[in-house]
């Protein structure tokens, strides 16, 4: 596998993990249109669109939204800096900020 293919695969894997986190948040919101979890899911999907438009199906499904976000961060951190997109560090930052928000929500 070339460096480029490997990087693309990791970006798609991370996007898949983000989508899995968003789906989990959607499920927590249920049928309540005003649920804050739906809002969080939207923020996660927005961020996932910056990572890759072609999310790969995750191979693991941690049991919390925050754990799924952490998995995505770990995957992106596996990309060698100069092989990834120029703004990768900033996308990782966005996911970290989401993680702070989720932790607050999960604690309530």
């Amino acid at each position, binding site marked *: 596998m070339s460096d480029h293919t490997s990087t693309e695969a990791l970006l798609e894997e991370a996007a898949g993990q983000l989508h899995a986190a968003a789906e989990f948040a959607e499920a927590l919101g249920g049928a309540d*249109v*005003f649920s*804050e979890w*739906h*809002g*969080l899911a*939207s*923020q996660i*999907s*927005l*961020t*996932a*669109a*910056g990572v890759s*438009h*072609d999310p790969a199906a995750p191979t693991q499904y941690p049991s919390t939204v925050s754990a799924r976000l952490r998995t995505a961060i770990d995957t992106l*951190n596996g990309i*060698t*800096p*100069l092989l990834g997109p*120029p*703004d*990768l*560090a*900033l996308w*990782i*930052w*966005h996911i*970290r*900020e*989401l993680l702070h*928000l989720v932790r*607050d*929500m999960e604690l309530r």
Partner: protein
Amino acid sequence: MSVTTSADLLERADQLARELAASSQEVNQDQWEQFDNTVYRTLYELIAADRADPAYTEEGTNRLLQALRGYPAPLQFPPERTFSVEYAAQVMDLTTEQIRKDIWNGRLRAVKDGDRHVLPAQSVSRIQRGIPPADPTDPHPLSRVSVALGAFADLVGDHHRTRAGVQLSEQTRADTVRRVLALTAVAAQYTVKHTGIEAIERPVLLAKYASTYINALDPSPRRIHALDNLVASIPDGKASTVNQELDAAMHDWRAVAQREVRRLVPSTEALAAVANQGVRIYSVTHHLLQRPGYDERPSPADRQRCSAALREGGVALRDAQLALRGLTSLTVPAHDFVTSSRALFATLQQVRQLADARDPELDTEAAIASLARACTIESELLSEARPSPSSLLHSGLLFAPARRLPTNLERLEPRAKGRFIPVQLNDVPELGWRWELAARKAPEVEATVGHLVVGRDQVELPHGIEFGL
């Protein structure tokens, strides 16, 4: 002998920025200034150091030079450079007449260059004392980023001055500048969170600058650069209460959301996020209105009507959002939009929590008035966004993975190869209608909520909207 290339140093800086994001150490003023100064020096070396002076000082269309000129009033300039009166006026926030007068009166040192005056770097720099480079022995994660970035800038600078090696292509420069801006945005946002409130103005400026120009330098052919450059508006006021934070977050979000929906090919995820943000606004408005103890001025009937309108509007906007699920225009949402969306979401959460706790820090009545304003913003945004999903669909610019769409003969091959294909009208027959309905509902919500706060004068301040006495 060990060899360190500029790529090694940039990679090191990028890696350290990721480590910085994962840490929680406070940043002091010296560490921030060293970083700020190092970033400008790095951008200067990458963009301008090997160019002729006129290209740097005169107006031009080169996007990299525009990015360098856009740097918010650099703390210090490279000592060997001189600057035109026009450029000095821009960075010192003065008119060219004032600069010329100061030169004439001897208040500003200038030298003659042919038939014009130019100003040495020291005359233009905001900080006259020297800013030392970051200490290589300082274990603070921000200092480590500054050291790696500074070493990178030194190497690029040495390359220019010795004229050795190969010239960087414009594409390589742009790519490298975007990397530097990305780690600048990370470090600046980190500093905003980990420094005193009195010292956040400069990091806020740098974070906005970096996010704006990362997008402006995006090589995507679908981006409209001119529009991207229009919105780098930077508020100079600081929010000190949660009510002001709400206004400021809305103000920021409106500017970047408007730009997102006006993009030639808008991001579907951004459009969905605009609709979803509306649901959040309606949700928190609904919550505050229903909160026991809220001022009884609106009659129970008015409140009930408002509650029903908010819920109906919420359902319409959520349906519009969900109609875009799984579809993409393959356009990446801009960083500043992602940041502003998250910031508004977080602020709305905070407002809701303070209301639940009946915290006196929150002025509930003012918050409801602000949310009424947010309903207006949402209505305007949806009105602009309404035709976009259908336009994307009819232009063949709305895609989905073939495996997610109904199969027919033509789709067998792309499905087998895991490709994206354009979505057809019969794949998403309700898409246009859902957005039409959302755009019709939003003004109804706006009118109903606005009815509750009528009579309050709104004043636009640097941090957003406030209400007059």
